[in-house]
């Protein structure tokens, strides 16, 4: 996979920019992030394939992917929002211009990959016939029963409200960051937000993720979209964690033997009115990413279930982040 290295440097840089790393990131860093993301995607695909095989199906479905991240409720919630909006757009497109099926992808690009934005085109379509379809999870209550009945208008899902809290927090953070931006900067920012591993790079992504090797070669479009969303999430998470690591490191340096570096770090951490130009900051290094990854791989409490039962394999499985 060495030849795959650096395929997504731009996208990763854009994503990191959106996540809060303003400085130019070294190639080494992006490569590391890319490899991490690649590993995660492959792992996800492998596990989903195993799950599908357990059901007796060769092709993985979206449910398999969602099942893999089921414990992260916030992420699941975001994913569902993303999927529902995707459906909305698709149906809207279908109804609006029935003939131009090929153009659908073009229209789709504007905000499709950024469900976190939340605002935008969906507002107008809310009351229309193409209302947002809820993406059901396979373990929802409705799955308890043999008969599937259509939902009704007046039911509200309190769960969704709660789940979107994390999303809203992230939106708020982005909002804060864009407050002081001028038009060009905001344009750049919003362009960066559209960065995706998959959008319009389907073939590249398939090769990169090892489709056909770890799983069926012809996955569903939905799966690719979900993977795109998840990769974006991974990069964001890694970047945020790496920034935290870096902040701690900077604080430690400042305390041990501070130089001018520390001031920059401190200010950067809390962006304010009199921040120095962002170029002055040192970007996140590979070691920060590594440390962030290590932290994210730390086993959580639930992995202790039945830890006393001796198992054959002591190698810890990769944790999906």
């Amino acid at each position, binding site marked *: 996979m060495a030849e795959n290295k650096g395929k997504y440097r731009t996208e990763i840089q854009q994503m990191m920019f959106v996540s809060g790393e303003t400085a130019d990131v070294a190639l080494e860093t992006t490569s590391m992030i890319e490899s991490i993301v690649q590993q995660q995607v492959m792992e996800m695909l492998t596990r989903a394939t195993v799950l599908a095989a357990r059901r007796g199906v060769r092709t993985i479905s979206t449910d398999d992917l969602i099942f893999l991240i089921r414990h992260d409720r916030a992420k699941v919630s975001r994913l569902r929002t993303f999927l529902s909006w995707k459906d909305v757009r698709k149906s809207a497109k279908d109804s609006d211009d029935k003939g131009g099926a090929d153009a659908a992808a073009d229209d789709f690009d504007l905000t499709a990959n950024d469900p976190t934005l939340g605002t935008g085109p969906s507002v107008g379509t809310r009351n229309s016939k193409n209302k947002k379809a809820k993406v059901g999870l396979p373990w929802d209550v409705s799955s*308890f029963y043999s008969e599937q009945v259509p939902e009704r208008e007046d039911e509200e899902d309190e769960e969704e409200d709660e789940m979107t809290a994390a999303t809203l927090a992230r939106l708020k953070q982005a909002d804060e960051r864009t407050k002081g931006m001028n038009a060009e900067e905001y344009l750049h920012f919003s362009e960066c937000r559209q960065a995706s591993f998959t959008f319009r790079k389907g073939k590249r992504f398939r090769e990169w993720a090892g489709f056909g090797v770890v799983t069926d070669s012809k996955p569903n479009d939905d799966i690719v979209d979900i993977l795109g969303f998840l990769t974006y999430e991974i990069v964001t998470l890694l970047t945020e964690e790496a920034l935290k690591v870096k902040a701690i490191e900077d604080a430690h340096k400042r305390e041990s033997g501070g130089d001018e570096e520390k001031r920059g770090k401190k200010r950067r951490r809390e962006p304010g009115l009199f921040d120095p130009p962002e170029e002055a900051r040192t970007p996140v290094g590979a070691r920060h990413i590594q440390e962030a990854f290590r932290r994210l791989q730390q086993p959580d409490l639930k992995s202790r279930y*039945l830890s006393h039962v001796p198992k054959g394999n002591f190698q810890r499985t990769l944790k999906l982040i």
Partner: protein
Amino acid sequence: MSQTPQRPLPNGLHRAASALNGFARRAPSLSRDASAAGSLGAPAAPGDEEEREDDPVQIMLKARFAQAETDIAALFGHDGQRARTAAPSPSEAHAPTQPGPDDSAKTSAPPKKAARTIDEDDYGDDDDEDEDEAEQQSPLKTKGKAALPNGVIPAAMRSPAPASLPHIARTNTSASTEQAKSSEDVRKQLEEDKQAAAENAKRAFQTMFFTFENDRDAMLEQQKLDELDREVENEISGDTNASPNAQATSAPAATTQGTLGSADLGASSLTLKHLIARIDLKRDMVRASDNQLRTLISEVRKGRSKWASEDRVGQEELYEAAEKVLMELKAQTDSVQPFLQRVSKREAPDYYNVIKTPMDIGTMIKKLKQFTYKSKKEFVDDLSLIWNNCLKYNTAPELPIRRKALHMRKETDKLTPLIPDITVRDRAELEAEERRARAAEADESDEEDEPIMASRGRKAPKKGGKSGPSAARKAPPSVEVDDQSTPQPDTKPPIHASASGLRNEYLRADSEAQDVSSAGFNTPPPAGTSTPGMNGGSGAHGSQADVMEIDGIGGSALGTQQEDADEDDADFKTWKQVTMKDRAAAAAERNRLFRGEHLNPDEPAILRSKAGMRRWMRQQKMLSADKSAQDADDAADDGVGATSETLAEGIEKDEDSTLPDYYHPLSSIPDMNSNWAWITDSEGYVVPQTEEYMRMFPKDTFRTPGGALAGRIEGNIRQMQETRKICAKIGIVKQMQIQAQTYQNQFQKYDPEPFAEADIGPVVVSEEGPLMAPWVCRAALKRSVGKVFYHAGFEDFQPSALDAVTDVAGEYFRKLAENFNCFREQPKIDAVTPKFNYEEQVLHSLHESGIDLEGLETYVKDDVERLTTKLSVVHERMKAHLADLLRPALGDHAGADGVGAFNDGSEQFVGGDFAEDLDEDFFGFRELGLADELGLETLSVPLHLLQNRLHSGYQAQNQGPVSATGMLFTPPPAYDAISVETLPNHIGLVQDFFREKLRKNHDETLVEDEDLPQKQRFPKPRLPPTGKISSPRKRPIREQQQAAKKKRKLEEDSKLAPPVGKLKLQMPDARENGAEPEKGDGHADGAMLSPESLTAN
């Protein structure tokens, strides 16, 4: 002072003999009276000088003498009775034996008492001696003789009584009778006292626990006593065996087979004389031996003591009393031991240097059985000789043997007054005297016969050489006389001491005793009985110990104090004396059971007997009765005894035992808990009482505790079940919409039962704490896991999955508990403060197991509480959907009764939608002008009115509950079926019609259409799924065929026939069809409106 034995006179006075027999029959009471009388004036002198040299203990004992005396008196009465009843001896041998020469010849042969065949040569000697005796006895026996006849009976019976008993007559004054009477009263009172004392003692036995440690001694002593008896018996029998041989020459005729009459049958010879004479006549034909015959006859004649003899007046009474006294003394187990047997030379070499006339109780018994004693005095003298010998030999005052001797002498003094002062006399002698006293008096015929018998049967006790020594032996009556020169004083000690045969016999007896007793017990050497001689000189403490050891009182550790204490304790003493025999028996029993240190496997098993249990119960009852009243005690005892007898009649012999209940642990019946009783209620069912006394495992431990979370989960589960019910209905509706045909049992009704957790059955546990039943616990956990499964949305699941998850959960909980225990048992920081408090323990263990409070809370909030709302939402949704499916238009806008559903254009009513689009008058309503007439926008029919099939299908599904509700009103009785018989009851209009029908039905009873079998029924009109009524009502196939045929005919006819005729023909056609509905060919007349007409268009 030599007293010669009484001899029967050769010319025996038969009359007197018969009189004596009469006395003998009431011998017990007489003798008792006599002894009582004797006790009045009996001198209790001979203890004075000894008491002077008593040691302090003895003086102390004196203080308790009065109390002990009553006890002893009680014992006397008790034991005396027992001894008398317990010893039916076959021996009526008169022959005095000489122990010395015959000992070697002694065998263990049964005593043979054929010695009655005595030659009459001795009579001459007897006469001489009798005269002496008469002279000597007269002063002595006055008192005794007074008591003997008691004054009353002889006088009343016959006048010559005083004459027949000259000595008695002499003293038998009125005064003496009074004295006798008063003595009788005293005697009675004494006896009552004794009995009362015995009763008290018995009661005390039950309330006081006496240890078993003395039982062994009792057994050994008893063995010794038995041995003594046996020995005496053997000696006597040896003599009797020897004597016939000796006499064989003198009386050869009598040896081989004596006449029966010659055998001493006692008084039986009088009453049974004819029988005896007869037997004698045919003696050679009777195959039984003399002995057998004698025992047979004595069996027949009961009530005679073994001492009874018609030849010897007073013997029975004297010997009864004497034996009683001896038994009594023998029962003084503590003290009598050294005096039971002769002092052997080995033990005390110099004994016979000091003591010239030795005496012991064994010898006395022997003498008693050999009828050596002629008077009370001889007997008493022998007794005191024993004690005095001992005192004389053992001079050291601190010797315990002295105390024993003194004690025994005191006992003897107490007892001797009870012996009647009787001198035994030969009947012959008496009669001779009588005859001498009275002149020649005419004898009656009965008395004539008697002498023949008497003379025949009278056998003089054989004496020869024997009478001499025995008389000599009895000659020294007291110690004082001991040193005096008696005719043959020196001959006797050799006889006793030096007789090697006797010695051998002792040894043999010892070995026998050793055989009998098991290995664990060593019978003390016979020397033990004669320790006085051995230890006489030393008097040291060690010798005391020796004495104790030999006596076998539990070892040398027991000192004199112990013994004193024993003697001090009146209860204990009483206990020992009263129960000695029984205790000995019990100890022997036990002894048999154990060989060495081990159980003897050859012994029969110990079984509880009914008699034992009965006795135990009686004792218990007696004890409880004791609490109430003393007076009622006796009556209660009698009552108890009576009841127990009735209870146990004929089952087992109920032997009386003086031993308290703890000697018979096998017989005791434990108290039964009242809860164990078999109680039945009024219907006869057994009332179970288990719950009241058993420790039941608490209920509901194996069920889900009713917490808030559990309640919520239960609610969720119920909600799911309800929703699933609706789901099932939806499924049915959908299926019916798809399927063209449905079957009656195609759809199973889904009616889930609510979950109910069964508790475990009643379980009895032995202690508090959890129930250790892994399979039950696992089952309970499995149930919980199953509920969690259901709660998670699984309607059913594979058992293997359930098992697997149960195992995992069990393992997890085990680990959790282990962790918790680990944290709980961390060493404490200091004495009181644990390292972790309870919260920390719980939290730590949870954390160790990979769970935290947030996780739990999240689960409760998300997976339980939120699930509740979700479930209710889904439930509402399902309900709405089902309602939509069933009545599509009956939404919220439809109004209360569904009328509103017609208002919104009725697009949903499928009935005519497409037809309207095509501008088609689907039902033909428009053409009919219904729309205008009724003001309707459209003329489509609501679907749910048309969906007959759906409705009926649903109804079939829900038939159960509907029918279960029951009918409000009972249906009216069915009409009578129409038959030929009932036809006239109907109105005339229909009669013809029905008659027609009946005729078609071959005059059978008509059947209603509803009651027809399914296949013959007319099909009901139905609207097909298309909603279009296409054909007229279906007719039965037969009718259809007929109709088709007719139609064809008609068509043909119409072609042929003129139109006028057609009309005419049609009518009869219709009539011919009869049952054919009127609508059949309706298209002919368009004026009639019917649905069918609509279809025609």
